[in-house]
């Protein structure tokens, strides 16, 4: 295995592969920064260019491009409160809150350092997991995937504020998210649900316009109302100094970073959970680390751990989601589905062979993710000063630019005016939630997990009737879900007993 690991590295380090990887990184850099223009779409557009490349070069190009979109997507999330990618929305909650406090540099430093650690941990976990990947993936059937979605929803407990009232609001927001996830043609009876007789809603709500609306619009309204720059009236000199502080934060909370990276890798390995779940689970886990009610309130108001968690997870998941794609031919996300098309184009047959005979090629992909991330993070650090300064630009100049990014961003998901309307409607919902003090994270968690939970529950019951409840892994996951829900209550009680 070590031999394959080394061979994989040698494959990537050939100058042509490396050159193509850098080209991919350069493209992915911009794709990640610009909201809406997603990694998956860009991959589809780039596929025709790989016809004439060698397999290793082509993967270096495609994967290099894909691997960095999550990293640079975080930058847009932190700076403007606009998700650069659907997979980097969770970074907004604390990252952008930090930017508003004048800590954009620190937030970016933490996000980038966490991305790097995430990519590295993900790659190492993957390299170690190769021998057990097949049994692991095959153990997780529909009942287990359903329970994973439930565990994800259980994290709402730690995403809500403490106390009965906070919990109630959190779970209600989650329920609202679940409700919106049911919009569209249902996959069991083929009946259109809540589509208001609009063709646009048949396919359900697209994540990007919803996320852009619910997070970016309230920020814009607030910015208009304040009329200052994003970072208020803070002296400009303080901004970039924090970048190194952010890196130190990542290592101060090193085990949290590692744990969130492992969450990301694990969610990535599970096919069928999709690309945007990992960051929210990681955010939920990061929020669990708040020891007091006081600390808990800090989450969403600019706690650096809320940046580190999702930052690490959305990079580590990439390595993970490669596994089902190459070992089973089952893509874990849209982007991976398109990559799979690339594999086929190059004559590589996904299947068990990729974990034995062609292991070095598999490892070359892992190396590509690592190297692409290292390069991107280093380049980003070079520009961090300039980037952080954007938060001191006057609102009058910044708002039109952000608005253009927001609306073009959401419009690119379907090229339909409906995307704009969805952004506006969810912008209004998001704004009301902020005003009323309702948490937005549980809402998004419900939206992201709704379809998954519904489908796998249906399949589990249709296939096993009630017997699925007695499967051992399901029982373990039920216990995990209960612990995740009770933990914050228990924490709150212990604190009040001490006081």
């Amino acid at each position: 295995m070590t031999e394959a690991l080394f061979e994989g590295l040698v494959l990537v380090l050939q100058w042509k592969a490396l050159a193509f990887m850098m080209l991919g990184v350069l493209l992915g850099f911009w794709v990640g920064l610009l909201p809406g223009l997603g990694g998956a779409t860009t991959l589809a557009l780039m596929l025709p260019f790989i016809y004439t490349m060698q397999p290793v070069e082509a993967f270096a190009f495609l994967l290099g491009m894909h691997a960095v979109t999550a990293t640079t997507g975080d930058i847009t999330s932190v700076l403007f409160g606009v998700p650069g990618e659907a997979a980097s929305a969770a970074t907004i909650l604390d990252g952008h809150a930090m930017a508003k406090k004048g800590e954009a540099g620190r937030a970016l430093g933490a996000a980038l350092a966490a991305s790097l650690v995430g990519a590295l941990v993900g790659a190492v976990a993957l390299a170690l997991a190769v021998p057990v990947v097949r049994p692991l993936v095959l153990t997780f059937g529909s009942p287990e995937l359903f329970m994973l979605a439930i565990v994800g929803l259980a994290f709402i407990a730690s995403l809500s504020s403490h106390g009965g009232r906070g919990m109630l609001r959190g779970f209600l927001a989650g329920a609202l998210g679940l409700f919106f996830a049911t919009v569209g043609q249902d996959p069991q009876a083929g009946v259109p649900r809540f589509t208001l007789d609009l063709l646009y809603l048949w396919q359900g709500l697209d994540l990007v316009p919803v996320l852009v609306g619910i997070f970016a619009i309230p920020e814009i309204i607030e910015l208009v109302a304040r009329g200052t720059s994003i970072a208020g009236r803070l002296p400009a000199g303080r901004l970039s100094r924090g970048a190194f502080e952010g890196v130190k934060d990542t290592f101060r909370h090193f085990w949290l970073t590692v744990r969130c990276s492992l969450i990301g890798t694990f969610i990535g390995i599970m096919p069928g959970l999709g690309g945007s779940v990992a960051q929210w689970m990681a955010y939920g886990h990061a929020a669990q680390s708040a020891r007091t009610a006081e600390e808990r309130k800090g989450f969403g108001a600019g706690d650096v751990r809320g940046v580190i968690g999702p930052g690490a997870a959305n990079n580590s998941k990439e390595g993970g989601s490669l596994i089902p794609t190459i070992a089973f031919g089952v893509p874990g996300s849209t982007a991976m589905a398109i990559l799979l098309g690339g594999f086929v184009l190059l004559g590589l047959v996904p299947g068990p062979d990729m974990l034995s005979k062609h292991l070095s090629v598999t490892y070359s992909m892992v190396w590509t993710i690592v190297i692409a991330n290292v390069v991107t993070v280093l380049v980003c650090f070079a520009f961090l000063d300039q980037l952080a300064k954007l938060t001191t630009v006057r609102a009058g100049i910044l708002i039109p630019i952000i608005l253009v990014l927001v609306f073009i961003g959401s419009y690119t998901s379907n090229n339909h005016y409906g995307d704009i309307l969805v952004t506006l409607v969810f912008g209004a919902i998001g704004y009301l939630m902020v005003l009323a003090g309702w948490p937005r994270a549980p809402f998004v968690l419900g939206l992201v997990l709704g379809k998954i939970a519904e489908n796998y529950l249906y399949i589990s019951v249709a296939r096993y009737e009630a017997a699925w409840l007695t499967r051992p892994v399901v029982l373990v996951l039920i216990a995990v879900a209960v612990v995740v829900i009770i933990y914050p209550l228990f924490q709150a009680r212990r604190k009040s007993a001490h006081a």
Partner: protein
Amino acid sequence: MLKKALIAMLAALPLAAAAQNFQGKTVTIIVGYKAGGGYDAMARLLARHLPKHLPGKPTVIVQNMPGANSIIAANHIYNVAKPDGLTIGTFNRNLPIAQLTRVEGVKFDITKFQWIGSAANESTILAIRTDLPYKTFEELKKAKEPVAIGSTGPGANTHDFPLLLKELLGLNFKIVSGYSSSADIMLAVERKEVDGRAGSFTSLRPFIDRGLVRPLIRARASEAGIENLPVDESLAPNPRAKAIMALRSAPEEVARPYVLPPATPADIVRVVRDAFAKTIKDPELEAEGKKAKLDLEFLPGDKAQKILVDVMNQPKDVVDEFSKYIKFGE
């Protein structure tokens, strides 16, 4: 009067000639799905090679117009796009079913598009795990235990094909729907959550070659490797059942539809049709298609149109019973 008509004719002449020359123009292929799927991949492959075969070598680009399983794109091409040959549409092969079953929102008559043709057909088969005791369709038919078939949902061939086998041929199937993709079902087959699935032969072939599943029956459209499988229609117990199965299969012969807006002049249609026929036979495109595992087979527009006219002319009782089983989707 005569003079005026003559002038009008003369004025129209260069226009018609110009319309057939695409020099300096941009031809747009509108795809009814997002970038990345099978319809999109085919359109992008064609877009790369089409310019060589169109007069004047225009630029050909692909535009994605997703939504409502392609109904939005089809409505646009039918009602909005200019009939000047510069907008070509490709969409869900099952749109005829949407029209037939009166799905709300359909604002087109599928038979009135100017049909360029179909770039490929799709052969649907049903395959089950090799470790099950059923080696032939006859044996499967006698299964005592229900056989679990995974599906992505109504309207997809993973669902409708086994559904008709169950309802019309009386197979002991338990259809489990809601998987997110056919690859997802394949994984469920691998972990023995379900016993098999239906789908295109192309997507199932690697798993057949690997010995995971065995094909037992196919629908009408065929290709090398599955010619000898029994065909669902030939096993139908009565003409009504046969008509229903035939109706489900019909769109699969027009699996990658390409159309022009209804009012497109006949000479432009002819030029585009010829260009498509030549493009699909282009050795460079064939080589790329082979690499991408996209099987191409051109079905000219007039033949495609005929198949669809037949679909639309079914007697009401057949359509009514068909609608009981089949919903439009995917």
